[in-house]
């Protein structure tokens, strides 16, 4: 059974169609990149999966269970976690408090403490500054915090929206290294929105190319860079 399935999913804002009848599935442990130009519907797609955006039609399933129509917190409690665009760190909370916000639903209290220790081991800077306000961290550190915060919910499926936004290329390398290592370690299924298909190709995985709320291509990320499909997605059929 697939980890995540979208069936005929549509999202509309008023008369504007953000997602037009999308269908695809993601296998357990898979790494899926979603790429495409601005306005392609990438963030709407993540929003519709996480419950933050209401679907006009169709449904989303995780482990065969229907998520559509549920509140974001219920979806989160079923094992889906989100690293949102712009990180959305709780700036006034301490680093440690940020990490603990999402652990309320966990019954394995001992494991929460272990996970916290693991985060501080893998990101010593977060450990050093655990009692400092999260707003005082640098952009790269905040991205690591956002990823760690999502992991603290003990997710099975993690959505990551534009992790490279506003970060220096070297930091982006590190963010992806960490993400891939964590994925391998925990058997996570990852869905990553990444504007740069070149970056996706370098990291490796499956890639969906979107344009105008539709999927225009689906395949191995490494194979995409060389193809005309990309040009077509960004510039249209006239290119």
């Amino acid at each position: 059974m697939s980890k995540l399935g979208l069936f005929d999913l549509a999202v509309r804002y008023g008369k504007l169609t953000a997602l037009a009848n999308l269908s695809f599935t993601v296998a357990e442990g898979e790494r899926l990149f979603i790429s495409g130009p601005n306005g392609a519907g990438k963030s709407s797609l993540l929003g519709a999966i996480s419950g933050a955006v209401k679907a006009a039609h169709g449904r989303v399933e995780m482990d065969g269970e229907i998520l559509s129509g549920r509140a974001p917190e219920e979806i989160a409690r079923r094992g889906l976690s989100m690293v949102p665009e712009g990180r959305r760190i709780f700036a006034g909370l301490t680093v440690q408090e940020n990490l603990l916000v999402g652990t309320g639903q966990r019954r394995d209290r001992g494991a929460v403490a272990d996970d916290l220790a693991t985060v501080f081991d893998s990101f010593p800077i977060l450990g050093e500054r655990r009692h400092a306000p999260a707003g005082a961290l640098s952009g790269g550190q905040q991205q690591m915090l956002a990823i760690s915060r999502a992991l603290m919910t003990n997710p099975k499926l993690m959505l990551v929206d534009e992790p490279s936004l506003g970060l220096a290329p070297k930091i982006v390398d590190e963010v992806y290294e960490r993400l891939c290592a964590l994925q391998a370690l925990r058997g996570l299924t990852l869905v990553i929105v990444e504007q740069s298909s070149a970056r996706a190709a370098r990291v490796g995985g499956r890639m969906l190319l979107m344009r105008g709320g539709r999927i225009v291509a689906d395949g191995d990320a490494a194979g995409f860079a060389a193809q005309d499909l990309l040009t077509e997605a960004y510039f249209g059929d006239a290119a």
Partner: protein
Amino acid sequence: MSLQLVFDALSLGGIYAIAALGIALIFGVMKLVNFAHGQFIAFAVFALIVPSANAVATLGIGALPAPLLITLVLAIGAGLAVLAERLVFRPLRDASPVSLMVASFALGVMLQNLLLVTYGGRPKAVSLWAGLGAPVPVLTAQVPLLQLIVIGAVAAILAGLALMLKRTRIGLEMRAAAEDFGMARLLGVKANVVISGAFALSGALAAVVALVLVAQTGVADVRMGGQIMLVAFIATVVGGMGSLPGAVAAGLLIGAASALLQAFLPPEARPFRDAFLYGLVILVLLARPQGLFAPAGAKPRV
């Protein structure tokens, strides 16, 4: 004289701070300015007495021993606020902050009319804890016992609330939700639990204000929440919408300024004390339009 002034300032400011907190708590998680808060206070006042149109009230709950009385009135305040959230504000959760504010006005008017129908429109004499007016010598001053109790209770409530917000699960979730509710929900924080919790706390704080007002004035008046609601709302704006420490600090400041003006204005200007007070408020807002302690995340949307 001057020591007495300190106690006046602290007790008045403390009550303003508690009332302002009641508004700031709900604004923090819901971006709702709850203009029904004054009527929550009035409702808790009238919950003490037996319904009748008489000029002298008969104590109902108000005649119980103090610990039981306080527990009951706090529970009534919290219950009313939670009920209001469930019936009025939850269905409107996705509405604009302005619609929410208008709904809170409507709720306030309905509550006030409910009290008018049940108790009549005339203010009533209520003698709650009459012994508390007795003066107690403190150093060089003679301070009414009630004032000391109010100052102590306010300090205890503020400390308890700070501990709750800092140390408990629901406190952490409320602070996270106040910064970014959508993100908190994406992390599994239950919106209904956090919002109901904020309303319950706010309602209980309204009940505290009600008890102090009745004990201080000896009157139950349908309109008595309105004045303090106005001051409390101003305190939340001056403190910075959404900032709980800001609401407390501004409440204390306004109380202190009010007591100082009362003491030091020339006698012929004293009737216009509030004009001077609000003039100061305008000056503060001109200097810091975002309030004294505006948090980064919460911009006022109303």
